[in-house]
């Protein structure tokens, strides 16, 4: 087929299935990144534009921990995740909370400002070079017939499922989780019964940032990092979150898979460049026609 000079090829089912499966692996990465974003949105009702920049920062942290101390990226979680939590906590408590006056478009701009600061600080200190972690097992894996899955991809998939489950258990079974949900539902009420809402918000933001660090560790073996890495992920993460329904963990997981598969099929059929339009197209459609997403409910 030929549309506007673009060749639309016809592929065998093996190729298509292989593409879809690699979309599932890609989608698990997207889901991992989106989980933190959706947690923050669900509780604070803010859209965190700095999410991508925080991911980039965490990826650099993983890289440097590996580079200087030779620590495996998965083990690096033990250092990077607590650090990310503290950073996120401070960011919400002392910067975003103090400057945004609780207006959502101002919050978006404040987090944009933060993203710009982080990105350019990375550029200043780490330069624009691409860095990547080398692990001995990044080419080993399992042959799935139609495609080959390397271990880092399998770990990312397992990780996204485990993190979703863990997050759900945390939010429903622990006191902290229940407090967070209480604040999400009834801000004023929570304040009246003496809950320190600012503290809970900052904890949530810290958790969201910690999740970003988990994602960074899981994708370190397969992705390179440079100061712009975050921007590449931020629009995708928004799309995943909006598609799944803002605030929904299962939605983020499902949304991640849908976007991952769509992107891979888009690349297969429309080419490396135009294939990416599927993501913006989904984003626009969802915003216009179903802003509550697939799994969200009306407020």
């Amino acid at each position, binding site marked *: 087929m030929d549309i506007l000079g673009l060749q639309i090829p016809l592929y065998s089912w093996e190729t298509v299935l292989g593409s879809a499966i690699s979309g599932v692996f890609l989608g698990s990465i997207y889901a991992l990144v989106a989980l933190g974003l959706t947690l923050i949105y669900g509780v604070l009702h803010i859209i965190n534009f700095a999410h991508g920049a925080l991911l980039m920062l965490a990826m650099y942290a993983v890289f440097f921990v590996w580079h200087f101390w030779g620590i495996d990226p998965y083990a690096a979680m033990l250092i990077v995740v607590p650090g990310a939590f503290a950073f996120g906590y401070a960011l919400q408590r002392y910067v975003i909370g103090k400057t945004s006056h609780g207006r959502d478009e101002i919050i978006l701009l404040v987090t944009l400002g933060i993203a710009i600061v982080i990105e350019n600080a990375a550029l200043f200190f780490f330069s624009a070079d691409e860095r990547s972690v080398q692990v001995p097992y990044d080419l080993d894996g399992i042959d799935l017939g139609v495609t080959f899955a390397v271990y880092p991809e399998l770990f990312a998939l397992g990780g996204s499922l485990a993190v979703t489950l863990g997050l759900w258990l945390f939010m429903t079974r622990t006191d902290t989780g229940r407090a967070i949900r209480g604040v999400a539902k009834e801000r004023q009420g929570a304040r009246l019964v003496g809950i320190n809402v600012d503290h809970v918000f900052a904890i949530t933001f810290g958790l969201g940032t910690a999740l970003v660090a988990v994602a960074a560790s899981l994708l370190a073996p397969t992705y390179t990092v440079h100061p712009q890495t975050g921007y590449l992920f931020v629009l995708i993460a928004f799309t995943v979150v909006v598609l799944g329904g803002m605030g929904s963990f299962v939605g983020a997981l499902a949304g991640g898979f849908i976007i991952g598969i769509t992107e891979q099929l888009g690349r297969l059929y*429309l080419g490396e460049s135009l294939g990416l339009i599927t993501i913006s197209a989904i984003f626009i459609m969802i915003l216009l026609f179903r802003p509550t997403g697939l799994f969200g409910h009306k407020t």
Partner: protein
Amino acid sequence: MNGFAKSHLGWLLLAAALLAVPVFVKSGRWIEFIELTLFVAVLGQGWNILGGYGGQYSFGHALFFGTGAYIQALLQFKYGVSPWIAMWFAVSGGVLVGLFVGYLSFRYGLRGSYFALITLAFAEAFHVVARSFISITEGGRGVQLALNRDPDQAIALFQFTFADPFLKSYGYYYVILALLMIAYGATWWMERSRFGAQLVALRENEDAAEALGINTFRTKMAAICMSAAITSSSGIYYVQKFLFVDPAIAYGPTKSVEALFAPIIGGLGTVLGPLVGSVFIHGLSEVTREAIDAVWGARPGVDLILFGIILVLVLGFAPKGLVGLAEAAWRRVARGGKAQR
């Protein structure tokens, strides 16, 4: 002096000073610097109409700049259209994109951060399209216009690189100045019109505006058209000056961010805000670059780190930007003067 001249003395002086810049500024490097500052001031005034006066914060104003620039470049490159004709299509194209994005967003009632996100998504979609449809847009390698070396053709081809000495030095300055004066004149007029009052009203409270007889949908559509026209006009200058545009320049995030920096730092919803913001940003950028060069040698990023911090500080503590701070200071001085008497 007649009444108009008297009551608008400040504006007339500002215009005269800008027109007379070539009398005082001879260095090519400084003219370039001023041109760039005015360019961002025009880009930002477009954003300010919609965001500052209308309260609809766009994160994708590159949509309009990029469309203006691409149309200006492609009509000349592919069809040999005169740049003087292409520019009308450039602005109309920007307005059409504004109508399209505005209709979808406002009809479906997107507000606040949802509007910001959808403009971002549209800019990204246009970015992908510009990169992918090579037969139409030349794809990722961009559109490079031929450099005119014939001095007699300088005006006809709207290219001043090989023109007579005055045009060569100041031609592009007057181009961006003309665009600036049109944009700021239009904003000045708008601020004093019913349309402006209604636009500000819907920014302040959309329900109340609607209750008081304002067609909020139509008012927002008018605002996005005006905004798009101004921002896309800056694309004309850009293409004539640099004779080049590619998808990243046109639709990448940089222009969208520049467009909102200037008015927010300068003063949202004020005529001079974007100009003040742009002067501040570029001045600061120049100073820090010199300082960094002296200390560490050339390294990118520092000026943007500062702007990011300033953006956050302004949003948090000076919501009316530098213009607002200046006004508050002025009022304090005026009151102090009165108290002494």
